């Protein structure tokens, strides 16, 4: 499948909703779960999930329901989760990825990381100020969560803090971890300060398959 036909599979609004749901979950989801979450029938959900799998947008695994094993445990359920492959379409063709790779390499070699982190912090702060101005009354957590969601981080609650299911800079971060994760940390620190959010603080805490930054409950209450 060409990149553009893969993306075209997401044109159907129901399918898109299913994809968004599956992509936002930390582990594989069953047809029944996906149907319930998106408010459609199980048969329709199964049809669309299999179209997504054919396009390679989701991956299929098989697992028995938790707590059941051995003979008589029943047929393993088909589980769907977001595929790791990236798809990108640009019309007309653009290649920002190659440019980003080159720039990252040069920052690495010249040691311009402090400047990169400064630039990232002020960019994050501008985004944070804009988010705050748009929604002055929103609680901190919702404001941050909405803003991160809009930037593709796929945030989810984790205890009193927030973790990020998706790294928007994945390929670059994979090749230049200290550089890109450090830039990302500065972006998110900037976002928090720009939005005057003091209840959360950003820290590096990489986990496989997720963004390397975690937003933790600030410990500024003198505990």
């Amino acid at each position, binding site marked *: 499948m060409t990149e553009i036909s893969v993306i075209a599979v997401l044109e159907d609004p129901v399918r898109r909703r299913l994809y968004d749901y599956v992509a936002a979950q930390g582990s594989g989801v069953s047809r029944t779960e996906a149907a319930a979450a998106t408010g459609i029938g199980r048969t329709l959900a199964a049809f669309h999930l299999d179209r997504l799998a054919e396009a390679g947008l989701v991956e299929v695994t098989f697992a028995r329901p938790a707590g059941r094993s051995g003979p008589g445990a029943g047929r393993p359920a088909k589980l769907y989760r977001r595929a790791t492959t990236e798809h990108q379409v640009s019309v007309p063709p653009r290649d920002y990825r190659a440019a980003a790779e080159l720039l990252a390499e040069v920052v*690495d*070699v*010249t*040691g*311009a*990381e*402090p400047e990169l982190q400064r630039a990232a912090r002020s960019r994050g702060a501008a985004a944070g100020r804009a988010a705050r101005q748009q929604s002055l009354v929103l609680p901190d957590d919702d404001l941050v969560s909405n803003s991160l969601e809009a930037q593709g981080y796929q945030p989810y609650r984790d205890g009193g803090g927030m973790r990020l299911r998706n790294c928007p800079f994945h390929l670059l971060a994979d*090749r230049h*971890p*200290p550089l890109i*994760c*450090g830039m990302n*940390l500065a972006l998110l620190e900037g976002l928090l300060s720009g939005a005057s959010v003091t209840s959360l603080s950003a*820290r*590096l*805490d*990489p*986990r*496989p398959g997720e963004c*390397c930054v975690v937003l933790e409950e600030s410990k500024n209450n003198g505990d």
Partner: protein
Amino acid sequence: MTGYHLAELNIGTARAPVNSPEMAGFMAGIVPVNALADTAPGFVWRLQDGDGPGATALRPCGPDVMVNMSVWEDLESLRDFVYRNGPHLDFMRRRRSWFHPMAVPYLVLWWVPAGHIPGLDEALSRLDLLRRDGPGPRAFTFHDPCPPPVPAAEAAR
């Protein structure tokens, strides 16, 4: 089990003497980060001297150049520690405040027979090799890794 372990050498030119305020963050951080390495999965050995934390007192490449050398069971365990351990990644994020950038490779990886502890001479010659010929089976990097030697080829030598 390949019969080989992965050795790593990493050098850096400090921006200031180790006892200066500029280097305080590095000197304070190196002890807990080394302790994390010691208990990390796949850790085998790291270079230490008697006079400072880690190998910070050793200067085989010049008065300002610090070295760091270690051995790991395989490439993935080293990669996990270097890039996927929160405190270590954070330490690396801050490295430019303590070390000058280098236009030539400053980190080299190579395979050693399991049980062999490489000396600094061996390590520095691998770094020279990497700088001279680029990455290859005898000296490589995280970006261009090489698999461990095949034991049969070793036996035929």
